[in-house]
């Protein structure tokens, strides 16, 4: 039985659309990433799965419990970190975790031990007696994750667990989440592409309330890069560079791109699939007497990936 099964989930807010016909399933022990820009429906989906509010249509089961028929069992098996990382700032870390241990139904005697366990897991032991309001953003984030982990729920739902952290903290949180994989089912949302490929077993890509793709990060990258694109930067007049490159065999389109320095011009080249044009492009630039500064595969922004996937889907339909 999958840990999470979602079927045709829909949520509308008045006339505004939240999410539309979302279906997927997540196996036990899997780390699933929700990837999408702001407003794509990630938080709405998570709030439905945590029984914060019910869907307008469709159904979902968590560990076999239906979110509408048995919300209490669902809540018991889910640990949740909302995007805003809500905390009682006037409480100490230990008191805060002790309070939520009580809320989650852990017997009074076991609460301190449960709090100590998650504090150790999240590296908070030395801060147990500190006021949450006095902690840095990174530690507050850990308190939020520790709260979600209290009582060892089978499913963890983390809404943007690394947002606003510095790179070192992001790496630490990422390691923490990875260490949960296998034993717990984890859903985490993000709008940062590398984060998903580093942490998640599979990715759900959402855009404007729709589910665009469910796949492993490696497969997604392959699908997206089926159409190769090159980034080139050279000391050349912008118009001249574009005009010269479009004449190279195998180049389908040339889009101007912002260059790294003021004196150089840069372009993104869309090339024919399967064509090896790198040498020709380099030769073309050198023949013109321009200095080649950079030439390599173009990285895609998240927006471009979404547009790609939408095109792909609509082309198929």
């Amino acid at each position, binding site marked *: 039985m999958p840990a999470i099964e979602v079927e045709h989930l829909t*949520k*509308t*807010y*008045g006339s505004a659309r939240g999410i539309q016909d979302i279906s997927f399933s997540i196996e036990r022990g899997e780390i699933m990433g929700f990837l999408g820009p702001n407003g794509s429906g990630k938080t709405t989906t998570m*709030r439905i799965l*945590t*029984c*914060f*509010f*019910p869907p*307008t249509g469709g159904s979902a089961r968590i560990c076999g419990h239906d979110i509408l028929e048995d919300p*209490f069992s669902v*809540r*018991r098996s*889910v640990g*949740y970190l*909302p995007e*805003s990382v*809500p*905390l*009682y*700032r*006037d*409480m100490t870390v230990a*008191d805060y975790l002790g*309070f*939520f241990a*009580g*809320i*989650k*139904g852990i017997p009074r005697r076991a609460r301190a031990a449960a709090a100590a366990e998650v504090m150790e897991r999240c590296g908070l032991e030395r801060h147990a007696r500190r006021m949450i309001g006095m902690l840095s953003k990174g530690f507050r984030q850990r308190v939020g994750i520790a*709260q979600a982990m209290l009582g060892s729920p089978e499913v963890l739902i983390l809404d943007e667990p690394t947002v606003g952290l510095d790179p070192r903290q992001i790496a630490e949180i990422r390691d923490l989440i990875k260490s949960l994989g296998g034993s717990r089912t984890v859903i985490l949302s993000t709008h940062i592409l590398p984060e998903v490929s580093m942490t998640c077993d599979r990715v759900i890509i959402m855009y404007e309330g729709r589910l665009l793709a469910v796949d492993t990060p490696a497969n997604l990258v392959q699908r997206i890069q089926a159409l190769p694109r090159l980034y080139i930067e050279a000391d050349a007049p912008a118009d001249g560079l574009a005009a010269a490159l479009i004449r190279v065999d195998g180049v389908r389109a040339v889009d101007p791109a912002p260059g790294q320095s003021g004196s150089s011009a840069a372009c993104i080249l869309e090339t024919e699939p399967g064509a090896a044009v790198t040498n020709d492009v380099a030769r073309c630039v050198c023949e013109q007497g321009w200095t080649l500064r950079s030439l390599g595969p173009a990285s895609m922004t998240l927006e471009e990936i979404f547009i790609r996937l939408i095109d792909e889907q609509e082309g198929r339909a």
Partner: protein
Amino acid sequence: MTMLTILSKELRSYFSSLIAYVVIAMFLIVAGYSFYTYLVMFLTFVGADLKVGLWQYTFHYLRFAPLTLIPLLTMRLFAEEKKMGTIELLFTAPVRDLDIILGKYCACLLVYGLMLALTLLYPALIALYFSVEPGPLLACYLGLLLLGAACIACGTFVSSLTENQIVASIVTVAVLLTLWNLDWNEGVAGRQAVAVLHQISLSEHFLNFIKGVIDTDSVVYYLSLVFFFLFLTRCSLATRTWGLK
């Protein structure tokens, strides 16, 4: 069980955030001064009935506590959680809405009860020199406690409607004063209307208690107000499931 967890957390946050100390201190200053003033008045105009009259005057004055101080205690109950987003954690934890409401309500009631208990010093002082009849005094305290219980329920409800604590306290004061003054328009309202207004206004029932009368009607009235407002609070929390957010 979870209700007790919430109750003790609320109590702790009342005292750790100083709100409880400030409100209780303000109350004791004003209450102490009014008690002193009335006591001096009764001692000066010898012949007045100290046993009932002093309490009647003092407690009539003490109505300011539920009407103006309770909104300061209740304003944070839900508004603060909504503002900080912690309400989302409570709503997604295995807790019933009713446990959340009762935990918060009872915590506030306990703070209010403590506030009233501190004024027991006045009858204790009087008892050193005069005999104090417990009956009328008990009625006075019961009246003030029940009035407070109703006001706290009202404040809890209003706090569940907004995430702005200031708005919550102002609206609560307005609602409570309106409920208090409801039967003051005897001159213009028809006789039947006044009879109804008497029944539903906060003041009429309270006056019974401070005269030393414990009327079942009045007890039932205040308790029904408590149920009514707590029921409304529950409905207000349930609106999240309507998708309005």
